[in-house]
């Protein structure tokens, strides 16, 4: 912690969490951002206990063992033809409105970002457009709304969007607030460092600083690490790449997918170490629209069958290696 970091912390309203000593250093807050103050107590709870927006609050420990976290509602019958949504269904309501409203992050290449022509692009965006195609027969009937990274599910809870497709990991905590589709990708948390830094995994980070987005599951994992690195929370994932480039942190730790996006922006960085976690990404949907969950699961099944899932992977995620098998859907009724 030098003066420059203090300046950065102030300017970006970054949270520095010292898991080792237990001293919190939430620096001065700016008017437009909320500082999350994770305490080491909450941080050392099981990883899933901290979800977006839960900072400082203690939810009852959900019972995750009684159900399969990844199981989602089974599709019912074949998909209805585009433009012919069942009367009274959530899809019919969306069709009547004329567009699907999707909450996205615009800062998480290659999952979602705006290209040079300001058009949203990425692996997540392809999914949203395919759902639009299934409802309207038109991939372009989507209204994208940016969702705050620190609490990606917030627009869903306040009914501002129909679905959130924003690299959201299924967690116990989040499942209590929203419904999830079947996973569409399985990521895992890894570490991004400067080339030649000598850091190979989490154990090498003792006494070093590691950056992750505030409110992310990645931050929780860092805080729970036995090597007790200094956790630095930023407003967005990409801010972490900046912090690494500015020499303010020693490493960035988040999902390998996002790290690959960062490594692509800066050849002096590399992704190292084994997967620390398993992060199943799924589409978040309002709890009172089970028909939409089933519909989207059917759309996902078809995407895998007709090869569009793989095409999208080839387009955006090729750098992560040859396409893996798509996550196997698990259903409940």
């Amino acid at each position: 912690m030098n003066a420059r970091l203090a300046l950065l912390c102030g300017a970006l309203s970054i949270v520095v969490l010292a898991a080792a000593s237990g001293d919190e250093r939430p620096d001065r807050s700016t008017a437009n951002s909320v500082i999350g103050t994770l305490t080491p107590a909450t941080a050392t709870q099981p990883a899933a206990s901290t979800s977006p927006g839960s900072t400082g609050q203690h939810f009852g420990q959900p019972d995750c063992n009684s159900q399969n976290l990844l199981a989602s509602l089974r599709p019912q019958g074949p998909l209805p033809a585009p433009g012919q949504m069942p009367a009274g269904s959530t899809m019919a309501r969306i069709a009547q409105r004329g567009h699907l409203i999707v909450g996205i992050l615009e800062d998480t290449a290659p999952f979602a970002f705006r290209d040079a022509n300001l058009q949203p692009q990425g692996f997540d965006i392809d999914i949203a457009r395919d759902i639009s195609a299934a409802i309207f027969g038109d991939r372009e009937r989507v209204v994208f709304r940016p969702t705050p990274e620190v609490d990606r599910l917030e627009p869903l809870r306040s009914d501002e969007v129909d679905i959130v497709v924003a690299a959201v990991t299924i967690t116990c905590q989040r499942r209590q607030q929203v419904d999830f589709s079947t996973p569409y990708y399985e990521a895992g948390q890894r570490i991004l460092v400067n080339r030649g830094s000598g850091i190979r995994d989490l154990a090498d980070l003792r006494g070093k600083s590691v950056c992750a987005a505030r409110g992310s599951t990645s931050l929780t994992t860092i805080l729970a690490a036995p090597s007790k690195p200094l956790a630095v929370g930023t407003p967005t994932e990409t801010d972490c790449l900046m912090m690494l480039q500015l020499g303010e942190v020693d490493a960035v730790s988040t999902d390998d997918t996002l790290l690959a996006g960062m490594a692509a922006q800066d050849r002096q960085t590399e992704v190292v170490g084994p997967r620390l976690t398993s992060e199943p990404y799924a589409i978040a949907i309002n709890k009172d629209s089970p028909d939409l969950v089933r519909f989207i699961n059917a759309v996902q099944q078809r995407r895998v069958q007709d090869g569009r899932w793989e095409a999208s992977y080839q387009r955006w995620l090729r750098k992560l290696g040859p396409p893996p098998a798509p996550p196997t859907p698990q259903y409940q009724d």
Partner: protein
Amino acid sequence: MPSSLQAIQTQRSSRVQSGRRWRRYDWDTTPGKLMVAQIVLVLVALLGGGVGAYAAAGQASTIQVIGGHLESLNADVITLYRSLADADATAAAGFLSGGVEPDEIRIRYTRDLVSATTNLARASTEAGGELVTTRRIADITAQLPVYTGLVERARANNRQGRPVGVSYLRHASDLMQDSILPEAAELQRRQAAQLDAAYQRARSVVVAVLAIGGMGLAGLTWLQVFLFHRTQRVLNIGLAVATAALIFAMAWWVIVGSTSASSLATARGHSRSLSDALGPAQIAALQARAVESLELVTRDAGPTEPDFDARMQILERDKGTGGALGAARQFTTDQQGKSLVQAAIDAAGGYAAAHREVRRLDDTGDYIKAVNAAINTRQPSAATAFDRLDSALTAAVAHERAAFQRDIGHAEGWLTGLPIGTGSLAFVTATGVAVGVQRRLEEYR
């Protein structure tokens, strides 16, 4: 002062010549009273003249300091403040045009930085050794290259299509908005306070000189009434000349004091309008524009609509009666100034409406149209509405600055000849008193 010296010599010689004669000069006796009055009044006249001449010269130099040094430092600091805010708003707007920034945006950003660094250097020179000001200037000077470095990294990354550019831009903007601009605001507040203190000094000096003059006039009146009762002679030429000179001097001071003071008061109104109303209005407008751009550039984090509203509330509220522009309306006295401020208020309304359209488009998911409505300069947009607001504010600032220079010139002009005039008239008064009283004293020998 030959006559007063003569008087003192007379006094001395009489004391030497005989103790009995000296007794006649006792306070109880008429000559004694005359002599004391003579000495006191000559001293009051000389003191008044000295103080008056010094005060007049001091007043002239205070006004020169206000019109020259302090005001130009103030203007530099306001310009610095504005340039910094403008650079930030411009950098953010540049991001909205995609990888390649339009020429006018690049040029405007460069011009802002040149202006900021020039004004920093000038303010630093003008601040002299003033510690707090110098330290703040040093703080800003140290942070500015950090800011520009971040903006350059933001631009370089953006040009290559790397999303991390947005992080650099937001970080740069946070540094500007949360750290550099508050420093500049403090600097500006301090300059405004110093200017105001100088105005206070300029006003109190007139009162002090008139108080001494009043004492002299009272003494002279008493002396003449006393002599009239003792000698039954109405006119003592020496004292009459002294009285006339004193009254003339005081009248000069009253007229000059009040005219100069009223010019000074209007000048103060103009400089307060600049530092307390129009200056803050320019900053608030630029900050609002920066928020508008950042809302479109940094989507997942960064400033939001309440931040925009807060800036606009500072700029203008309650149909132009509140906020900085409402204050500007209060400060402005002349018709042209009032209509310029009104134009700015109207332009602020126009910009707020254009911004609402940008938000409406963005909120309904029409991001590209929203960006177009924010930056397109070829059709009515938030960009053109903002330019209109910015020009209206610049015109009002130019008007107030010219009016200030004119009034400070008047205030200074009225003081021409006052120091030497006060000194000469005081000398005439002292001589008149000395000669006039000496004549009477000689009659007692």
